[in-house]
């Protein structure tokens, strides 16, 4: 269903009359292939079958459906584990093949943007080591973190434009015994969710027509190397990224607009760790407060690690002086999984979240008391060492 932004209708007409414009930026992927032809590196092809989606300036980006290598996120796995679990659950629910590697490090960009205790060469080498590991596995990288995604796109630009940097990193990869390989596309998990949204909609088991959602687009998804993010003329006239919002409407919930959608969440990279007064103030004053005031949503959905953490965790302290806070926050992956009947604790792991989410679950038609009782039984079994870990079979039992 289109999400209108009425003021843009006239502009759209003018644009249609004018015809397609030449994209203002080069298509870096062409350069990636040129370098392959020169024997500078290998290019890992997007495996078949893939889905074509449209990016900011109308180019087509290939999103692989399966055989994906999951470049996990530090903050998701560490502090919001239901985020990563929900992504894997969605893939499994569709019966698709994937690889969850141990031969993967963080992109280390959170630290880089926080402390600058790294440099261009190291950042590019970390990226290419991970890409090499994906290539060796035969699976195609799918990147869970928005910062990794944005940063890897920056790294790709830098490598394409700098022969000395390529030489430095190639030398390092040789020493590590890793192939020097660039993926054909750099793909964020939220792009896969966007591409697969109709499949999720077909499998939806909850009625979400009464659920109002505000979307926070992640800065490092749409502000870093902007031309590679997904846009759709039917979503806000193509003036905002279409990921997340399109998924919400496909699942039958309602996207609500608010004026500070472009603002960052306040994460700040170093601020969230050592200067949280800024983070808390920004997250509540510029995001949660405004959403409450203008849209009064049931839930905030976003598609990156830092945004979920910041928008969720910042609300506790603000309660002391702000009655207005208290909107649950999660990723669109968790929301889609819930819509498809995923367990709120075994899969979406909502007990790791801070802001009260139980009224939302009730409104979605989920009996959270019963689900929590089941999860407590699981924990008892684990405590008694009846089993070492909760399994995927348990998750869907």
């Amino acid at each position, binding site marked *: 269903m289109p999400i209108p932004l009425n003021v843009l209708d006239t502009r759209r007409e003018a644009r249609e009359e004018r015809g397609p414009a030449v994209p203002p930026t080069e298509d870096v992927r062409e350069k990636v292939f040129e370098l392959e032809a020169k024997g500078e590196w290998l290019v890992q092809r997007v495996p078949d079958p893939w889905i074509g989606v449209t990016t900011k300036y109308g180019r087509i980006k290939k999103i692989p459906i399966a055989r994906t290598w999951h470049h*996990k996120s*530090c903050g998701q796995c*560490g502090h919001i584990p239901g985020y990563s679990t929900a992504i894997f659950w969605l893939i499994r629910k569709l019966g698709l093949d994937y690889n969850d590697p141990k031969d*993967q490090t963080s992109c280390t960009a959170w*630290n880089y943007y926080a402390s600058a205790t790294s440099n261009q060469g190291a950042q590019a080498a970390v990226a290419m080591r991970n890409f090499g590991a994906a290539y060796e596995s035969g699976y195609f990288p799918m990147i869970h973190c928005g910062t990794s995604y944005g940063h890897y796109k920056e790294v790709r630009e830098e490598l394409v434009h700098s022969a000395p940097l390529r030489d430095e990193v190639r030398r390092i990869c040789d020493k590590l015994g890793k192939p020097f390989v660039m993926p054909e596309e750099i793909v964020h998990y939220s792009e896969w969710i966007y591409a697969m949204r109709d499949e999720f909609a077909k499998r939806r088991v909850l009625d979400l027509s009464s659920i109002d959602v505000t979307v926070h687009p992640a*800065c490092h998804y749409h502000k870093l190397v902007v031309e590679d993010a997904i846009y759709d003329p039917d979503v806000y006239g193509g003036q905002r990224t279409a990921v997340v919002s399109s998924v919400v409407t496909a699942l039958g919930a309602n996207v609500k607009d608010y004026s500070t959608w472009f603002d960052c969440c306040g994460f700040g990279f170093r601020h969230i760790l050592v200067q949280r007064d*800024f983070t*808390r103030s920004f997250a509540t004053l510029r995001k949660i407060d405004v959403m409450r005031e203008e849209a009064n949503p049931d839930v905030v959905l976003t598609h990156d690690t830092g945004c979920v953490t910041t928008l969720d965790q910042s609300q506790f*302290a603000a309660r002391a002086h702000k009655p207005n806070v208290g909107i649950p926050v999660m990723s669109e992956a968790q929301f889609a999984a819930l819509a498809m009947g995923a367990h709120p604790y075994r899969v979406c792991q909502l007990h790791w979240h801070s802001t009260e989410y139980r009224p939302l679950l009730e409104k979605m038609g989920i009996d959270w008391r019963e689900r929590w009782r089941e999860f407590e039984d699981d924990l008892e079994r684990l405590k008694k060492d009846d089993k070492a870990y909760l399994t995927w079979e348990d998750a869907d039992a």
Partner: protein
Amino acid sequence: MVLQARYADVPIEEKQRLFDQVKADERFESYLYGCYECGICVAACPSARFYDFSPRKIAQAASREDLPMFYEQLNDDIWNCSQCFSCTRCPRGNNPGGLITIMREVSINNGLTSAKNALEGYGRVVYKIMSTGTQVSPDMLQPNAFPDWGPHVQEISDNLALWRRALPPDTMHTTSTAWEVDDKTLTELYLIWHMTGVLDMIKQVDTGLHMILNDVMEELLEEAGFTPE
């Protein structure tokens, strides 16, 4: 007229030396195309709302090569930036946030006191990412580290090992790293830190941390038969 009264005692040659390092970075050219001083970046900037901070001034100082202003920013401003890159909305194609990334690197490389101060309390995070390959771990969720996140942090910390076992993905049963990273993978990461001079950067700002990191890395590297160059 000199607008910047601060750091007047620092010789202009020193300011020039540091500016030259920023300008010499390969990325500088593609992050700055001159500045209209339109302020669009400031309107989009979260840090400008909370600090006396302006991405416009960053772009302005860099394009005019205003050394006193640059030096002041290097010491007093750059650590306020959120690195969100909202300022890439710049109609001129500038990336003030990117300029700040470069300025931060230069300030670390030169061991500036302001950089050391900015990293105070942050060392444990540098240690975590460089030694384990993941930036944050479940066991960092301690009430004394995140008192403002409320009592549920205590609940997580009390149940940590058990709750981690209640995660279906095999790679996520860890408590001291975000996911399980192979030793071979870690060895490769350590080699990257050595070969790209990142360890030398750490030495500039925190000798204690540098020593600990070296110790931790040495063992795995030796086991794998690598001698860092």
